């Protein structure tokens, strides 16, 4: 069974540019989560989808971040325009019931 995959693994963009991160959850998992870890700090919850619906987006930093999960399969997280403080590792996780399975993350560097 394939795990959670994320693309790209790394992204380096300039301040003001747009970046879109993609997450493919484990097949059949209705729950999909986005997290972010800024250098050396805690892994912070961003939001939670149940199928295509946003169940909890309380962790989204501001309106420069837009997450979508059309069709309830893969999800994208767009940052527009990117700021320096958006740099970090963005993790996606999925679950069916209990237990969240994490992807390898996308390392975003904003210069």
């Amino acid at each position: 069974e394939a795990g959670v995959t994320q693309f790209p693994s790394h992204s380096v963009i300039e301040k003001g540019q747009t970046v879109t991160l993609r997450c493919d959850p484990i097949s059949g998992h209705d729950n999909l989560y986005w997290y972010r870890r800024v250098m050396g700090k805690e892994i912070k919850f961003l939001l939670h989808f149940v199928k295509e619906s946003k169940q909890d987006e309380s962790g989204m930093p501001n309106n420069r971040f837009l997450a979508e999960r059309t069709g309830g399969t893969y999800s994208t997280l767009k940052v527009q325009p990117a700021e320096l403080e958006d740099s970090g590792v963005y993790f996606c996780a999925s679950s069916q019931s209990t237990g969240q399975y994490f992807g390898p993350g996308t390392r975003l560097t904003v210069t």
Partner: protein
Amino acid sequence: DQQVKQNSPSLSVQEGRISILNCDYTNSMFDYFLWYKKYPAEGPTFLISISSIKDKNEDGRFTVFLNKSAKHLSLHIVPSQPGDSAVYFCAATTWYNFNKFYFGSGTKLNVKP
């Protein structure tokens, strides 16, 4: 405001000895706790968990202890092996929003051969 804290960024232990990783939390509503292990360039993977109705849970070499009155939990690894070298994250959640995990900042464990 960080509700789960891991105050030791790193820990170095000799192979065969015990590793003790600590975690403190501030929110008394947390009632389920997890430890995740992360290798470089990989995502965190679930290691062990404990419910607040217990004070200890054991799985092979890994034991988690929970002290609710002190809002403190610890992960014991006995005996430690070089393959245990990784970053360990403590996480907590509540029964009423089980899908939202609060993580600590991690402790990097180095087990020396």
